[in-house]
């Protein structure tokens, strides 16, 4: 009788544990299957999305390269910035991989489109342009010259001639730290490696530069 009293609870402990483990395993396996299914359908969606966007991306990239080349050669391309934004289909894609050269063209193309599309705040733009002109006259920059400055509402493009290539390489960051640039985010584009000129795209104080096309 006594041995029965002992074994019944022991058996119930064992059964309880077995039941708990079985439930747990079932729950885990069920969840893993659900996750695997969700992941598979998500991947299928991604593949379909990538296939759809592939052609559009190729066309867009070509347009970006052409726009960038136009802007670098002094032709102010008046492309529709909204149209030439990187397609939404590429957003969230983790597989897009562009070379550093292509990426640079994309960035510059994007900034140029942003500039050509943005309305001009006449008062601010003129004031800021004068600030740059004055700063480049007053600062002791040796052979470095301000070629052109163009401001819109939230961004300016400052084109600088460095005189010689050695100067360009050593001075680009130093010029970016002049007082006239303080309080701003900026992007410097060296342009053609053989050219003496470079361009600073400078955000308005309190603003940021437009987001680059997503990678």
């Amino acid at each position, binding site marked *: 009788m006594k041995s029965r009293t002992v074994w019944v609870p022991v058996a119930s402990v064992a059964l*309880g544990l077995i039941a708990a483990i079985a439930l747990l395993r079932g729950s*885990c396996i069920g969840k893993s299957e659900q996750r695997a299914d969700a992941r598979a359908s998500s991947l299928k969606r991604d593949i379909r999305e990538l296939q759809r966007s592939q052609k559009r991306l190729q066309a867009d990239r070509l347009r970006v390269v052409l726009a960038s080349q136009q802007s670098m050669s002094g032709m102010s391309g008046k492309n529709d910035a909204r149209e030439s934004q990187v397609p939404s289909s590429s957003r969230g894609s983790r597989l897009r991989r562009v070379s550093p050269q292509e990426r640079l063209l994309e*960035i510059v193309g994007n900034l140029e489109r942003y500039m050509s599309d943005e309305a001009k705040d006449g008062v601010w733009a003129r004031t800021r342009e004068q600030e740059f002109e004055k700063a480049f006259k007053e600062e002791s920059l040796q052979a470095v010259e301000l070629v052109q400055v163009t401001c819109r509402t939230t961004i300016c493009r400052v084109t600088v001639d460095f005189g010689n290539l050695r100067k360009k390489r050593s001075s680009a960051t130093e010029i*970016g730290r002049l007082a006239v640039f303080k309080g701003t985010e900026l992007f*410097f584009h*060296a342009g053609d490696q053989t050219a003496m000129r470079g361009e600073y795209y400078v955000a308005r104080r309190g603003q940021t530069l437009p987001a680059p096309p997503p990678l």
Partner: protein
Amino acid sequence: MGRRWFATIAIAGALVAGLVGLLFQPVEEARASDAKRFPGTLCRANTISQQGDLVYNMPAGAVANNYDSAYRHVICPVMSDLSHATSWGQDIWLHDNNNNPNYYIYCYLYEQDPLGGSFHQSNWVATNSTSTYTGKVKLSTSLSSYFTDGVYYWYCALPPDDSPLGKSAVMQYFLSED
């Protein structure tokens, strides 16, 4: 009494097994993210001629301007793991020990194009220039990632040594990426 005790043990055993199972349940895969902290001693002079004016490990783990007459400029490399990070947070801890209100620490964060010609520069961040002594300060900035395979670094200007108050230094800096 003994029966009750065994029944209690049986229920408790089942509950413990259940709880252990819950604790070890696989969780959703976390998004790839990373965060790192770097000592100021990783910084070096922006120009080689100023390297001798810097002092390392005074205070510990920091780089400081040991020169008593002028700013010295340092660059501090930021090592990134994620080549396609979508968001960044960067902090830098500084020790501004110069008592002259005309001197303060200011820093920029840079992203450098792998081709070498182009760069992306953050808005500057600076210790309080209106007060005479700022002491330990944390400055923060961020840059959205522009380049394919770009690299990041801080550029900081350290005021001259203002002994006996002390030297101005980069103590450490921090990167989080997601």
